[in-house]
């Protein structure tokens, strides 16, 4: 091997090692900063305490966990059917040259900064929920009052934000299903609808699942957009029009002026967030293996 090739090889190695070390150092740093509070306050009290009031010394993050999970779940409920339907439409129904234009438009969504999504939510979606959704909700719950800052607002915005991820990866994996599958299905007398639902989607399921996991990761980690529109009320929600505070939003909002103990508590929130994302990833990987596919 020539000398400069060796040098380049080493340079590439250094790049790879840097990336890996960064991850390790960040993990180490978060755990080192947050663990003292977890140890002092008690992991159980920390996770299941229902009062988040750092200036008064109460660090119960259960409302924040509930907030993050409810907003994420809402985003998935809205985002998965929409995204999947969109992917099928692009891959199977729309003529190729039209599909290209549609796809690049959807991918453009990924390029919008999240604070812009948040601001859009704040000035358009929140008032819309207050003016149009609340009156319908009131038919069933006459006593209800809401401002629009809610799980619903967060879920809708996050659903839009995870669409590009779900659509583009799902579309690729549906398009990658061998032609023979489709031809065989049609030859056996199945119509287009049956072919898509019974053959193409099951064949592409591992790609679809990984798109959902990536989307979910983005939804859990998203900060700026939800910070502006969910109301940040650290209280366990009882309905989809209730405001919630999320783990990420709370960290971002309070880090600036936090006192040292408060700051450690925020790092501990980071640990919990880290653990939740790890657990979800492991769970998703396992369930995919159970289905005979893999994320790659």
């Amino acid at each position, binding site marked *: 091997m*020539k000398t*400069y*090739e060796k*040098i*380049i090889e080493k*340079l590439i190695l250094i790049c790879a090692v840097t990336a890996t070390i960064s991850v390790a150092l960040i993990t180490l740093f978060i755990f080192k900063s947050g663990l003292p509070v977890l140890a002092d306050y008690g992991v159980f009290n920390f996770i299941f305490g229902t009062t988040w*009031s*750092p*200036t*008064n*010394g109460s660090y119960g993050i259960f409302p924040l966990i509930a907030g993050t999970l409810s907003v994420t779940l809402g985003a998935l409920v809205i985002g998965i059917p929409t995204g999947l339907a969109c992917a099928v439409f692009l891959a199977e129904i729309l003529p190729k040259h039209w599909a290209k234009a549609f796809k690049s438009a959807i991918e453009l969504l990924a390029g919008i900064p999240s604070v812009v999504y948040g601001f859009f939510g*704040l*000035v358009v979606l*929140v*008032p819309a929920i*207050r003016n149009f959704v609340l009156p319908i909700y009131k038919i069933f719950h006459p006593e209800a*009052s809401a*401002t*629009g*800052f809610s799980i619903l607002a967060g879920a809708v915005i996050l659903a839009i934000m995870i669409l590009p991820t779900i659509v583009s990866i799902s579309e690729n994996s549906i398009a990658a299903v061998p032609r023979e599958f489709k031809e065989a299905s049609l030859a056996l007398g199945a119509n287009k609808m049956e072919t898509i639902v019974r053959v193409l989607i099951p064949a592409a399921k591992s790609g679809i699942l990984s798109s959902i996991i990536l989307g979910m990761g983005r939804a859990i980690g998203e900060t700026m957009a939800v*910070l*502006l529109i969910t*109301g*940040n*009320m*650290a*209280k366990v929600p009882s309905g989809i029009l209730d*405001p919630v*505070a999320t783990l990420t*939003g709370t960290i*971002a*909002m*309070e880090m*600036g*002026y*936090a*006192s040292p103990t*408060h700051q450690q508590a925020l790092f501990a929130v980071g640990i919990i967030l880290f653990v939740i994302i790890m657990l979800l990833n492991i769970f998703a990987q396992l369930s995919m293996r159970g289905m005979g596919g893999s994320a790659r």
Partner: protein
Amino acid sequence: MKKILAMTLVMILAVAALAGCGAKNQGADTGENPPADQVTGTVVTAGSTSVQPLSEELAAAFMDGNSGITVEVQGGGSGQGIKAIQEKIADFGALSREVKDEEKASVTKEIVIAKDGVAVVVNPDSTVENLTIEQIKKIYTGEIKNWKEVGGEDAPIVVVSREEGSGTRGAFTEITKVAGKNDAGEEVDNTTKEALVQGSTGAVMQTVATTPNTIGYVSLGSLSDTVKAVTVEGVAPSAETVLSGEYKISRPFLYVAGGELSKAAQMYIDFVLGAEGQAIVEESGFIPVK
């Protein structure tokens, strides 16, 4: 292959250039010695954490112009500020409240460096024009939940607050007594759990401006006519009413000293009260006193 070689060379050159930059800066730092006739020394301020960010800005600007003097800014709270001058570990104690009677004995010099005011704002459609401090306190602790109890329409009050640890929230809860000592004597913030929380002045303004039945608070410097500022105890918030003391949701930022000021300390306080220092006060969102 030649391309790769060229790129590697470029990278190495870039790294070398960066390293060169670092070395040059170091040289500049050590090469600057203060002239012999310049005042040197250390000025220490300690006390209120609300004043701390402002003090840090002022100190940084002051040290830019006076390289011989170091200004150290410490926190600890207003009580700590008094203690620090009693024990002579600081030149100035920083307070975000008036000096209490029992503290007067140890304070020889009291200098107001800035004032901080918080405006209470409501949605522009609200019919409420005036609130008392007591009413504001009850709204923010969740005792009053409907606008009709304070002379408005029959509608639930939507309370908008700032995040935990925010300086504006600290000032507001302290002055309106939303925060106070509990039975055990600990300082407790009693802001209702039913409050929407927004992380910036802008977000509070936007929320209050667009959401019916809201009440919020913003620092006086950021007030605009997208929201309606209510009068507090009959006084409208403005820089003038805060300076005269008529507007109640305001507090002074004080530097207090216990003995004679050192030459360096005197230079620092002259700078703070001078045009440049007061400009920094205004930039930081507080009300200049000069």
